[in-house]
């Protein structure tokens, strides 16, 4: 019989139970969905890395077969493979990171279409995304040009490779442009003997081939292929450092040995997961918290409204436990059902949508969300909290004697707080304002829950829109303030002075050089970084911490980015000790200033300072404002990058962010709407008899509606006042803590975003209130007043 009572009570208060259901469902859906997406990212990568044997170390330098054999013989080395990576172009001026390999046991291909790697096969294996963007199919012939070498290659396969999840053309690109840039693999056998011979002749400064043949009669071109790296697979991953040291000691051609965890592809993917982990905590945590606050308030009220029935059941002889179990059932079954639906929707809807967006961003196969045990634990936690709240509320009512319980309890009106509203400014308020002020003071908890809900939603909207604003701001900072050029020419390595001079004559001499370095701290610990040496004048600019453009850098020391300085505890005047990769000589440089860089945390210096240290300046980039829109190729220039293209590259990333943020805003608005509706229902139910009295007294429906809406409007306005700054700090915190180590972003939220968020939040609140206020017209005075008796 009690079960029947429960179902009928639920049916009677259906809208309240539906909102409880929706709040739990949305809270769990948001949490489990984002969690499933993040865990799915991690598991997808782990599986890909493991099944396709991602290398543990990259040995960088000019390496050959002797070096490979030395590495293979070292302790704890499982396997090693040579690779020559070059930047090639295609007939339609796209850029390819072209890798020549002789076997494919390390960083194995995942083949979407085509055939396995075979060193004896002539052809090319191409980046799957690049193929899709450029409509290239297996069997097509592509033209590849590199350093005068022109190859026509048949596409043998469309692939993913575990060390190429995320590739950009260079550090000036924030987002990979898959249409313009991709990676490719070919057999080392495809490198022509003539090409290697020409390199060897250039190195030996011999112009005549006949002379070269005489000087090097036993020339075997394969021994002279200038491999750029060796991929090393280590047996015991915990002892990677020993292998690194052994390579340093035994392989003189090794210029740098880089852990795979420090490579840009790995860092970018892992960074996305780490950022996501913070979002899991923040966004889904807020969603769940807001939802639970509201559910707790509602369940407490639902049970309290059953006070007389509880007294009656008790008077009829039902045991306390039986009554408690009956009321726990109300919240229990609703929360069990809502949690299950939330878990399913979280996985299939949020998890799938988010991971599919990521899979458009990273080149990794079989991306799928993964349900984590913590999602089940959170669901169980939610069910237990709801049950516990029902239990505590029920128990407090059961403690009273049945006679007392059978009387309706009206919230107290006396007390100092309410007394204040009889004096001064409050005395002048209209009836409806006084009524609402006192109603708020009498129902502090309900009001607080309403405030918390709307504050949370407003803050989430500010945060979601603010993230887009901040990204747009940093694109402007990067591509308009820091980069003050139209074109960047990436120069070929080791250009002679004459070759450089030719370029200077045509495009100006604003150049820079990037040097891979290791910084040694006072404990002798070394950490990889890079130095930007600038001789680019006003073409490359620096900004201070307030994003204001700084004066021309000085020539008597180095500049360090604020974030790097903050992480390492560097102060103005400190000295840093560093050496260039491939050169064991250490230098000490005084820090003479700080600069802000949104995407690289590094060290900068002028060309003059570098040369004062005795190091030769060899530019790798040249900046110009000369119009190169019709120029496809420049001698001694590897790639020509247009600043607008670099900027456009960001559009893809921003559009992915937008989709995710729209979802978050959508959930925030939905949840906010439901919370306002739910608390509105609570508030309305508790005031219905007062509204009925007002109606009897002759108040018009609109007058009563305005009284009701006024309170919700106040709550919305106060919530917005708190929600806007909280939204700012949330965004700032997310950017400063969640984002990858090498980024230095902060919140930069435009005024219009605050206005949109405030208006949006108010509109949601107002519309829900108006929707609820429709009930006032339908109040049956007779029934409502009788019900109160």
């Amino acid at each position, binding site marked *: 019989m009690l079960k029947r009572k429960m179902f009928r009570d639920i049916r009677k208060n259906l809208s309240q139970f539906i909102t409880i259901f929706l709040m739990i469902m949305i809270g769990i859906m948001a949490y489990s969905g984002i969690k499933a997406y993040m865990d799915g990212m991690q598991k997808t990568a782990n599986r890909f890395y493991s099944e396709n044997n991602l290398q543990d170390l990259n040995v960088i330098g000019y390496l050959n077969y002797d070096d490979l054999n030395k590495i293979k013989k070292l302790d704890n080395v499982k396997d090693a493979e040579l690779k020559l990576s070059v930047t090639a172009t295609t007939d339609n001026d796209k850029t390819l990171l072209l890798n020549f390999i002789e076997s494919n046991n390390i960083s194995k291909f995942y083949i979407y279409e085509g055939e396995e790697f075979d060193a004896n096969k002539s052809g090319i294996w191409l980046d799957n995304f690049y193929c899709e963007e450029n409509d290239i199919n297996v069997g097509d012939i592509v033209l590849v040009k590199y350093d005068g070498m022109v190859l026509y290659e048949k596409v043998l396969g469309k692939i993913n490779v575990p060390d190429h999840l995320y590739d950009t053309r260079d550090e000036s690109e924030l987002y990979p442009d898959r249409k313009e840039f991709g990676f490719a693999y070919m057999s080392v056998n495809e490198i022509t003997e003539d090409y290697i011979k020409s390199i060897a002749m250039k190195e030996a400064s011999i112009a005549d081939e006949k002379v070269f043949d005489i000087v090097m009669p036993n020339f075997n071109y394969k021994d002279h292929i200038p491999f750029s790296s060796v991929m090393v697979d280590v047996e015991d991953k915990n002892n990677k450092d020993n292998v690194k040291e052994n390579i340093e000691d035994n392989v003189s051609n090794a210029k740098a040995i880089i852990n795979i965890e420090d490579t840009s592809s790995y860092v970018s993917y892992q960074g996305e997961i780490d950022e996501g982990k913070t979002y899991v905590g923040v966004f889904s945590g807020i969603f769940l918290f807001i939802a639970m606050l509201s559910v707790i308030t509602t369940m407490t009220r639902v049970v309290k409204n059953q006070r007389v029935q509880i007294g009656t059941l008790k008077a009829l002889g039902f045991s306390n436990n039986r009554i408690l179990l009956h009321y726990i059932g109300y919240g229990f079954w609703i929360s069990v059902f809502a949690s299950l639906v939330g878990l399913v929707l979280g996985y299939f809807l949020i998890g799938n949508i988010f991971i599919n967006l990521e899979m458009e961003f990273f080149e990794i196969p079989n991306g799928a969300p993964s349900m984590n045990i913590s999602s089940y634990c959170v669901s169980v936690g939610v069910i237990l909290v709801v049950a516990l709240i029902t239990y505590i509320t029920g128990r407090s009512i059961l403690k009273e004697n049945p006679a007392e319980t059978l009387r309706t309890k*009206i919230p*107290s*009106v*006396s007390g100092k707080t*309410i007394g204040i509203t*009889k004096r001064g400014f409050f005395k002048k308020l209209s*009836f409806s304002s*006084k*009524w609402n002020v*006192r*109603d708020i003071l*009498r129902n502090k908890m309900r009001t607080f829950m309403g405030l918390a809900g709307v504050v949370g939603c407003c803050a989430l909207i500010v945060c979601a829109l603010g993230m887009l604003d901040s990204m747009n701001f940093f694109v402007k900072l990067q591509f308009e303030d820091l980069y003050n050029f139209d074109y960047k020419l990436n120069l070929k390595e080791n250009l002679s002075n004459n070759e450089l001079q030719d370029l200077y004559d045509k495009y100006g001499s604003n150049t820079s050089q990037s040097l891979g370095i290791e910084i040694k701290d006072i404990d002798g610990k070394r950490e990889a970084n890079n130095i930007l040496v600038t001789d680019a004048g006003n073409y490359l600019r620096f900004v201070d911490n307030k994003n204001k453009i700084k004066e021309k850098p000085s020539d008597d020391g180095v500049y360090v980015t604020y974030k790097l300085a903050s992480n390492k505890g560097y102060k103005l005047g400190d000295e840093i000790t560093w050496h260039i990769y491939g050169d064991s000589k250490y230098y000490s440089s005084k820090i003479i200033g700080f600069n802000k860089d949104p995407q690289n945390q590094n060290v900068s210096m002028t060309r003059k300072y570098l040369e004062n240290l005795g190091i030769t300046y060899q530019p790798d980039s040249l900046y110009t404002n000369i119009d190169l829109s019709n120029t496809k190729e420049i001698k001694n220039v590897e790639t020509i990058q247009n600043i607008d293209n670099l900027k456009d590259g960001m559009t893809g990333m921003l559009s992915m962010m937008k989709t995710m943020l729209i979802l978050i805003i959508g959930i925030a608005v939905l949840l906010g709407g439901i919370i306002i509706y739910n608390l509105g229902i609570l508030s309305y139910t508790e005031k219905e*008899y*007062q509204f009925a*009295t*007002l*109606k*009897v*007294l*002759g*108040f*018009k*429906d609109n*007058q009563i509606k305005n009284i009701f809406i006024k309170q919700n409007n106040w709550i919305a306005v106060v919530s917005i006042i708190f929600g806007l700054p909280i939204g700012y700090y949330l965004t700032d915190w997310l950017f400063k803590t969640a984002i990858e180590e090498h980024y230095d972003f902060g919140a930069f939220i435009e005024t219009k975003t605050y206005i949109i968020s405030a208006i949006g939040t108010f509109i949601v609140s107002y519309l829900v209130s108006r929707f609820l206020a429709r009930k006032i017209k339908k109040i049956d*005075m*007779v029934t409502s*007043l009788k019900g*109160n*008796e």
Partner: protein
Amino acid sequence: MSFIELKNVKKTYIVGGKEFDALDGINMSINQGEFVVILGPSGAGKSTLLNLLGGMDKVTSGSIVIGEDDIAKFNDSELTRYRAHSVGFIFQFYNIMPTLTVEENVNLIKDVTNTSKDSKEILKSVGLLKHADKFPQELSGGEQQRVSIARAIMKNPKVLLCDEPTGALDSKTGIEILKLLKKQSDEDTTVIIVTHNSLIADIADRVIKIKNGKVESNELNKHPKNIDEVKW
């Protein structure tokens, strides 16, 4: 013609799919300024009748003429205007706003009509001036019912409708309340009290008995008792 004329008033409810006549062809006349008591057992239709007279509910058929208006023909907004200007309600459980002070509760009427009286005078007349700044919860039951009366007479209504106004009060307090209501009737307001307490009938100008939704009797009391003589 009497001030209030009810002709063939029927009110039918659907209960459990079946029709139930709460009022089954009521006819009655009440003169202006009369102190009327409507008596009847539970379920007789007293409250339904009061609700119809107060414009809180609509008739199924028949007419209710008050003054010159047939309120049975009123639409919702006309009924709202009628409640705002012409009729005052007094409930058994007072129905005063718990979050408004005594004076604010009375002044509430200013929001629905501009022909209201002065609240101070009204409070003085019901003996509540010294409690004007208190919240209802700080008052006794009798005092709360006085607030309800003050609020009802604040608008200077033509008709004062009272649903068991002494039902929740002790005898002494009940008599105080009846005195206040009688005073209104003496000032030409028609006061209609619905009650099952037959003792109150002794002080009425007119006693109407209702049973099973029909008027059993409608009699003028030629010798109404003085209120102080009534006890229960």
